[in-house]
């Protein structure tokens, strides 16, 4: 397939970025994606639920990824977790990281600092206003993420199909589409809408290299089109597998239960239970709507190769 602006800018062959799924996007997955020509991204707490140990974990993950690939990879920084504390960022700088993805917070907070250290910044947005704000803050690329995506979601509920063209029209920097993409058709559709690349999370969970528990991967592979649900509306929107936990939350929301009855206590414990320990019945199992299209656990490199091969076929048919 053709190279896009995103490929040239990041020094990658294919404009396919792996989402930094909290707890499970570790060095092995990131390295496999990067080796296949995409951009792998490490989550700071990959395999390490204790946030106080995340500094050591980042260092360990970066070194491991570097031992597995000489190609570019990135590290993700959720801004709401680090706030104005740059100690984790400084570890990444010391380890020679050249690309970061950021989200869930103000991009003006750290973007200039990253740039001072020669680091490229991709920032996650879910509305036109946020994209324009991110461009003003100096980020290099926006990751525009639609309502279909798994995990924490924007209250504005804009879908990939309507978000991408509107963000593309509003900013000059490249746009990467995220949410609802799982194959070559999705990549071609995203590029048709004006994106210069895609980010995929759910598809990369169901890979051999991902740290996710086998039962969690299995649940994604077995999921149908209607297997996910949004909960936490009015609090913190979250898309995950429909299970005992989320069914109950959804029921409360539709019945008009007050916020305090719908807020998830021990949120990170419930995520850990699903993602690392495989409790997909009672845990909080982040998952995008595209899960219905994910039919098998394969290697991350194979995901990239299939998408690229399908892309060329799809475009020929247009």
């Amino acid at each position, binding site marked *: 397939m053709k190279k896009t602006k995103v490929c040239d800018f990041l020094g990658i062959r294919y404009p396919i970025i792996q989402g930094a799924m909290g707890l499970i996007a570790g060095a092995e997955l990131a390295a496999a994606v990067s080796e296949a020509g995409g951009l792998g991204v490490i989550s700071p707490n990959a395999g390490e639920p204790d946030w106080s140990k995340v500094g050591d974990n980042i260092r360990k993950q970066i070194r491991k990824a570097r031992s597995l690939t000489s190609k570019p990879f990135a590290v993700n920084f959720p801004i709401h977790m680090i706030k104005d504390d740059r100690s984790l960022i400084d570890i990444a700088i010391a380890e020679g990281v050249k690309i970061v993805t950021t989200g869930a917070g103000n991009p003006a907070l750290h973007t200039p600092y990253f740039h001072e250290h020669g680091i490229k910044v991709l920032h996650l947005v879910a509305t036109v*206003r946020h994209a324009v704000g991110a461009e003003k803050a100096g980020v290099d690329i926006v990751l525009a993420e*639609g309502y279909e995506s798994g995990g924490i979601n924007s209250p504005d509920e804009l879908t990939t*199909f309507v978000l991408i063209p*509107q963000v593309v*029209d509003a900013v000059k920097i490249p746009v990467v589409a995220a949410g609802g993409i799982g194959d070559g058709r999705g990549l*071609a559709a995203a590029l048709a809408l004006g994106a210069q690349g895609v980010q995929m999370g759910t598809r990369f969970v169901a890979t051999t290299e991902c740290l996710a528990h086998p039962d969690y991967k299995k649940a994604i592979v077995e999921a149908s*089109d209607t297997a996910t649900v949004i909960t936490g509306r009015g609090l913190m929107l979250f898309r995950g597998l429909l299970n005992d936990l989320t069914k109950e939350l959804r029921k409360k929301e539709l019945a008009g239960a007050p916020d305090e009855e719908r807020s998830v206590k021990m949120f990170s414990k419930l995520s850990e239970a699903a993602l690392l320990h495989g409790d997909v019945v009672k845990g909080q199992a982040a998952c995008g709507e595209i899960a*219905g299209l994910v039919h098998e656990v394969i290697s991350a490199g194979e995901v990239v190769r299939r998408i690229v091969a399908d892309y060329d076929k799809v475009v020929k048919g247009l």
Partner: protein
Amino acid sequence: MKETRVCGLLGIKYPIVQGGMTWIANAELAAAVSEAGGLGTISPNAGMRIEDDVEMNLEKQISLARELTNKPFGVNIVVLISEIAALVDVLIEEGVPVVTTSAGNPRLCTHRLKEAGIKVLHVVSSVRQAQVAEESGVDAVIAEGFEAGGHNGFDELTTMVLVPQIADAVEIPVIAAGGIADARGLAAAFALGAEGIQMGTRFIATGECNAHPDFKRRIIESSDTGTMITGRALSPTRGLKNAFSAEVARMDKRGATADELLALIGMGRSRMGQFEGDVDNGELYCGAIAGMVRDVVPAGDIIKKIVADYDRVVAGLR
């Protein structure tokens, strides 16, 4: 632009279907779309008063459309309304070439319509519904995503995830609907496996549509975040944010009953907003793509522009 199975099935030049928006999909709009090579669609109650006879109004609309074009056009019927059998009688007597059916069981009308030689397109919002529609004998499914205006599926599947999963699950052609307003959207829909598109919101902002000018103005002034879903517990509906939607959202939040909501919405609330132009107190059905609609233009120009831009979009993907 390439010809798809939808073109051959419906006898049209371009696989672009205009949504049959209740009250405001009038004969003039439908005829203009059909004249331009797409498929115009009439709503049986276009332009009528609430107390008028819907069968007589439908006959009037059909004969007006026939005066304006000799090309094929369709009529949209809502399957679950009480007058459905009488409306089907009218459609058969009049020999309407195409009927789109929505909001109800496709088994109810498909057989009678098809016996009369009428092509039937059914609106679906999940894989299961698409399979049932195919088993019922419909000629094509209209796969409508969460971004679409008006009444919406309960499962909240977006166009990006719905279209490829339905394309994989049925043999009949898939027409993508929801979130499409330009050639980028058409190319993306094709990439996902659709063989046509249906657009509603884009066709409201046209000179021929009988929607009130103030409603059209609200659409063209809308930003990306200008619409919202209300009525999630009973009948999810997407419309422009206004005083009325805020009131319904407050009732949703406290878990109002169906009776309470019906008492507020009453009869003809959407007519009040869309046709009479009470844009604060009326219901303004509108898709999430409204932020991309910038002007009121002739319906034929929309089709011409999409067709002209399509090849450029596809060339950019190669």
